[in-house]
């Protein structure tokens, strides 16, 4: 026969423990995203120095390929190569199937809506997105608009050349509680060099 008092005590303690573990896991996802960006900043410095594909930590399966910033919002992040499936946990990722920013074709950079790309909801048309690459001078893109698409039918066609364009992608809606099939896409077009965009590096 089960002792009801002991059962209630054990079960309530288990609930508290499980709740704490969940909170911990949630906090860890956010902390991981922050810590990774700090480590990535150092790998990025090595990338600028000419090291090809410098991994931010020895067992990483990805490496920084660009630095993205939105001066109007004071936001910036190191963009990773989408080499492994885990890159998104650490930073925005340049999808392998898409073009290098500034080259002909569409460059797609995706990140989580609740960490690195939380700021995407505040990005307005006309604002400037700056992409720094390791092998070329910084590029300025002007935001032209945004749209909401289905993940499986994004309409984003890569690999076909065409004018250079930038698509910043995250999940939609921003305040949803569970993962959904919709994505928020911010489109940007080259705005020439930083001077014509009215900015200085």
């Amino acid at each position, binding site marked *: 026969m089960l002792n009801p*008092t002991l059962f*209630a*005590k054990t*079960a*309530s*303690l*288990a*609930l*508290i*423990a*499980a*709740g*704490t573990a*969940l*909170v*911990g*896991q*949630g*906090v860890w*996802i*956010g902390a991981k*995203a922050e810590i990774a960006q700090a480590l990535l900043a150092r790998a990025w410095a090595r990338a600028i120095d000419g090291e090809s594909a410098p991994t931010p930590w020895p067992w990483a399966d990805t490496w920084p390929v660009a630095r993205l910033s939105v001066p109007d919002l004071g936001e910036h992040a190191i963009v990773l190569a*989408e080499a492994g*499936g*885990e890159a*998104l*946990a650490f930073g925005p*990722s340049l*999808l392998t*199937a*898409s073009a290098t920013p500034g080259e002909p074709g569409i460059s*797609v950079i*995706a*990140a*989580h*809506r*609740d*960490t690195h*790309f939380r700021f995407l909801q505040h990005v307005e048309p006309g604002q400037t997105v700056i992409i720094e690459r390791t092998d070329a001078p910084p590029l300025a893109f002007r935001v032209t608009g945004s749209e909401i*698409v289905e*993940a*499986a*039918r*994004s*309409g*984003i*066609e*890569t*690999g*076909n*050349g065409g004018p250079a364009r930038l698509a910043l*992608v*995250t*999940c939609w809606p921003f305040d*949803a*509680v*569970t*993962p*959904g099939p919709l*994505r928020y896409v911010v489109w940007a077009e080259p705005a020439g060099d930083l001077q014509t965009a009215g900015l200085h590096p």
Partner: protein
Amino acid sequence: MTSTHRSRGSGSQGGFALVLAAAVFIVSLFLWAEARADAPAPPDAGLVRLSEMEESALLIRTVDAGLYIPAPLVATDIALDIAGPVARATVTQRFENPSDAWVEGIYVFPLPADAGVDRLRMQIGDRFIEGEIHERRQARRIYEEARANGQRASLLEQERPNMFTTSVANIGPGETIIVQIEYQDVARLADGTFELRVPLAITPRYIPADAPQFVAEGRNRPAAVPDAHRITPPLMHPDGEPENALRLPVSITARLQPGFVPGEIASLYHATLVEHLGDGDARISLADGPVPANRDFVLTWRPAEEDRPSAALFTQTLNGETYLLAQVLPPAMLGADTQRRPRETVFVIDNSGSMAGASMRQAKQALLSALDRMQPGDRFNVIRFDNTMEQVFPAPVDASRDNLDRARRFVRGLDANGGTEMLPAMQAALVDATPQDTARVRQVVFLTDGAIGNEDALFAAIHDGLGRSRLFPVGIGSAPNTYFMSRAARAGRGTFTHIGDISEVAGAMDALFAALERPVMTDLDALFPEGALSEIWPAPLPDLYYGEPVLMTARLDNPAGSMRLEGRMGEALWQADLSLSDARPANGIATLWARNRIRAIEELRYQGASPEAINAEVLQTALDFHLVSRLTSLVAVDVTPARPADEALAARDVPLMVPHGWDFEAVMNRSPERQHRAALDPALIDRLAPGTPPAAGDARAREGLALPATATPREWLILLGLLLALAGLAWRVAQRRQSTC
């Protein structure tokens, strides 16, 4: 009264808290599972990753990036054209799209080491695609132009050096895909027997002790190859056969021109029929028709008379040039009875972290068995390295019992960890304290998995420091850096031994000691009449170890007269005269010559040739001979014959027009009862990634790039966790109040 009332009240409060807590717990479990679904799914049964592929397959993309479904393989035909030791393999495979959707796929094919695909033909439905060799950047440009023009094209990439990969786009519902590739391979010669291996299935497999063996001439008679069981019988146990029967019949035919009168022609694992055509030539086919593709096809043949020198000359005329392949087996008896010469052997063992586990055990056992072979009068030393280096003795010492025991204790105590700094160890091993000592031969045996990055520095060290030493790399583990080690063996003028499994240690080390202990033929040279020779590769000819044939390729200006081969074996001189008019025509020799030439030019890098000159030479040779190289790629171009305009509407009903010179007959006319049609698990079909029908341009625009999941369950986890913890807390408080009253 009030107390009972309150007590009852708190009791119902406790019950409410319990119900609330349970409800929150169940809801959170449900949401937890949903949140977890955001994380990458674990590999499912029936789905594979590209990196796991060990056999040829057409992989269809699924909605999960990186996971593929193998398309049913309907038929495979392998045609071998063997001239001397050179084999040209034509592999034709037919697949089917099992679904009623348009899909995209990737074709993968495992290649024998050192082989390279130089021809590719594909038929996808009614389209014909052919691979063309172009300079790498130009190949990319052609590919991009074709794509921009809306044509179908694909660029062939090399995923792994021994794995051929190409993308196949736009496969229609139920459509048939035929892929035909050609590659060139060289038969291995060991102890007077040639062995050619065609990989059919190279998955890790269980090897039964009593694997049946077949001899070609008589069916089901045990093979007279006494050590056949040692040559790694790659036979899959019946229990290991997949139940949904994806392994389908393979038909194999071979035309053998050994260049000598062959004795026994045998297939180790398949019953075959041999038809002798005279002049030593033979045609080999499977005795019982197509076989399941569950074991490698291994063909062996040996000369009828072993003690006579056997020589074979083949020529190929291509674009007005004559290419010669000379293969000469020096008389075997010259090596057998000669006295053993004392040796100075330096053993180097890699105990870096990448060797941890089975590799380290194999390396230690191999080294211990090598120490057992040292004899009084020999000298030896043992060096171990990770990112540090340690020598057992400051300089090589006599192989006395005490010294050997000390070395054995050292080896047994080794552990694998640390980084890999091979260069200092290589330099130390090549230090020769007694360069004038002609009584002893000096050998360096190097046991490693070759997991290194500074290959160039090592080749330079080998080239500069070799002197009279000879380098014998021993590759340890299932995936050693074969490229590095076979090149190191060539640069070090030794042989490369591979040990893939602990059970192979004894056999592989015996083979290595045959090379180490028996005399070596040195100073090999080929002499041609004045004005006959244009270029000869390899140059200079490498030293020959026991049982190896002289194998040289040359481009001739004038294929007349006779050539002389001479070499030195210890004190004895060896000579052979061969008449060039005896040469017989064969295919693939020009390709072999070109591959030798590219290899030799690439190795000039370590002798100070300028990179520009090397690049120019390599590129030109690769383009001239249709070879994939460091600087050239295969780009696939649609070569579908244009149909007359008035037939355009009925195009799909017109019988296929196959481009000139293409032959897919072997896999087209297969009797249907032999085809165990492979059914695809219906559950998997739902996971196929939708491809794009070629006519529906607007549909393509609608689909576009599949975007990744970009939400973390972070906030939800925190919210749920707080709710759970609060519910638990509330319950706990309710209990306390209940118990205190």
